[in-house]
């Protein structure tokens, strides 16, 4: 009996709050606001925590390196040199700054620098094209190649090159892996014929794929002075990334629900009808899971391959900044890291929404 009474009281308390809650949540469904606030709040909080830890970590590393420099000056050159070093570091003079993990503020500043740089280069490019417009028109009229801007690439150009490479590689992977996957999925004997091939080449490292592609493309381009870095890098990316799609397509096609196959048999569908009307639609979810993995692998191996192929993309940018060793190089590398991560995340989201659009069991993959 006592329990009943307390329960009733609680109910009354909530009922009293209801109109108030409703008043403050006009746009949300009932009860949506609190979970939403909680979710975004937690995300924001974790971002802040991350930034804080990063800041403290970089500060500690900075101090460690600064102290070491001062110690070293003291033991090697005496007190005067140590004082000079300390003053130099405190003054922010770029020549004696410790070169370590940059802090969030430095990375933010580098991002601003890169954007400003992009604006300068774009203006340069526009001015160049304007200046050369008349000359180029004459050259084209004579049947010669127009003169193009060959100056430094801006950060945005670099990112676009990388995205272009990944899409070309992804497309190549799709065009190779899906048809082969369907064929070997349909035929158990072809599956066993291809199995060793897949098992052996799947774990091969991106670097080795790059070397293989380089060997072949270099010979194919022999005597041709045009830049083959883009071709090499997108083919290597495609070859590295296609395995997930190949395996998933073969699995999806070979494991179509027996009921659907029976339906196809009872309706007496022809081979092509059976493949396109029954087998492919039913294996689409698995094919798309494979394509999603392929895209994320492609984006991941891209950096290493661009670095090796000297293709003007993010991979080369990161490596050149590291070799460069300028004062803000480390910060630029971290900017590139975030850009890579964010673009990878966006690509995955795009693939997920395409998957949900085309596949029949919606909201299954997250």
């Amino acid at each position: 009996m006592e329990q009943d009474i307390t329960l009733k009281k609680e109910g009354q308390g909530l009922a009293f709050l209801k109109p108030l809650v409703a008043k403050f949540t006009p746009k949300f469904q009932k009860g949506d606001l609190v979970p939403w606030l909680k979710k975004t709040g937690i995300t924001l909080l974790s971002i802040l925590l991350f930034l804080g830890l990063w800041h403290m970590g970089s500060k500690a590393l900075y101090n460690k390196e600064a102290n070491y420099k001062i110690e070293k000056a003291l033991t090697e050159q005496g007190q005067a040199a140590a004082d000079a070093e300390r003053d130099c570091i405190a003054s922010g003079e770029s020549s004696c700054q410790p070169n370590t993990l940059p802090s969030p503020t430095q990375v933010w500043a580098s991002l601003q620098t890169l954007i400003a740089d992009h604006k300068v280069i774009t203006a340069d490019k526009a001015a160049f094209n304007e200046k050369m417009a008349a000359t180029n028109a004459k050259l084209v009229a004579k049947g010669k190649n127009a003169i193009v801007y060959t100056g430094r690439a801006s950060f945005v150009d670099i990112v676009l090159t990388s995205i272009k490479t990944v899409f070309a590689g992804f497309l190549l992977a799709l065009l190779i892996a899906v048809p082969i996957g369907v064929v070997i999925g349909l035929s158990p004997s072809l599956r066993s014929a291809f199995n060793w091939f897949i098992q052996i080449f799947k774990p091969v490292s991106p670097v080795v794929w790059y070397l293989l592609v380089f060997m072949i493309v270099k010979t194919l381009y022999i005597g041709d002075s045009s830049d083959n870095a883009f071709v090499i890098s997108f083919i290597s990316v495609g070859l590295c990334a296609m395995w997930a799609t190949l395996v998933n397509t073969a699995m999806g096609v070979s494991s179509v629900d027996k009921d659907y196959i029976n339906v196809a048999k009872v309706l007496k569908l022809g081979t092509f009808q059976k493949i396109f009307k029954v087998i492919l639609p039913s294996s689409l979810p698995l094919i798309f899971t494979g394509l999603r993995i392929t895209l994320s692998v492609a984006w991941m191996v891209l950096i290493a391959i661009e670095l090796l192929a000297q293709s003007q993309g993010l991979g080369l940018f990161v490596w050149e900044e590291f070799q460069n060793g300028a004062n803000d190089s480390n910060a630029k590398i971290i900017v590139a890291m975030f850009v890579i991560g964010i673009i990878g995340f966006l690509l995955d989201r795009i693939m997920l929404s395409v998957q949900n659009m085309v596949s029949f069991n919606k909201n299954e993959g997250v």
Partner: protein
Amino acid sequence: MAYLELNNVYKSYGEGDNRTDVLSNINLSIEEGEFVAIVGFTGSGKTTLVNLINGLLKPTSGEVLFKGEPVVDTSHERGVIFQNYSLLPWLTVGQNVYMAVKEAFPKENKAFLMKRVKDYVGMVSLTPAINKRPKELSGGMRQRVAVARALAMNPEMIIMDEPLGALDALTRGNLQDEILNIWSQDKRTALLITNDVDEGIYMADRIIPLKP
């Protein structure tokens, strides 16, 4: 000569030690226009028997004769309603039926096929749901689509493999009447496989028990 005849049919799966006999020495004959029910426990080989008759499986020994000819493959003459509906989930109700109709009448034009689809979907009273996908339908509605799909192909014989097995008692009763109603219109030969004796008694002219 009977319309459908099974003579000394044996069916076993596996080889050697793993061999399990599912059906042994089945003899059965069904006349044209008859409604026959085969009743048996789960695991007594009912579905295997159905698949032998519709041509999805071949007997280990013995023969299955349909109109005097041995059954070697599936045929549009024998329409099948599967136990678990077997609708293609990526197609709508109309598309599921259309696919079957198109295969059954390859020479007809699209208008004829569409009309046939609409007629049969209307016959199982699913016209309002013609553009819905199987997932959006209840179990009973799905099975009605399967009935429409099988009948729209205009088969000479209709084979039903526990068509109402997954439905609740009320829906079951309604669908039994509906199927009987449709069947009585043109009296095709029908074979009903079921685990429910009452259902067999209610629907069929003749009941054959299948012992495990």
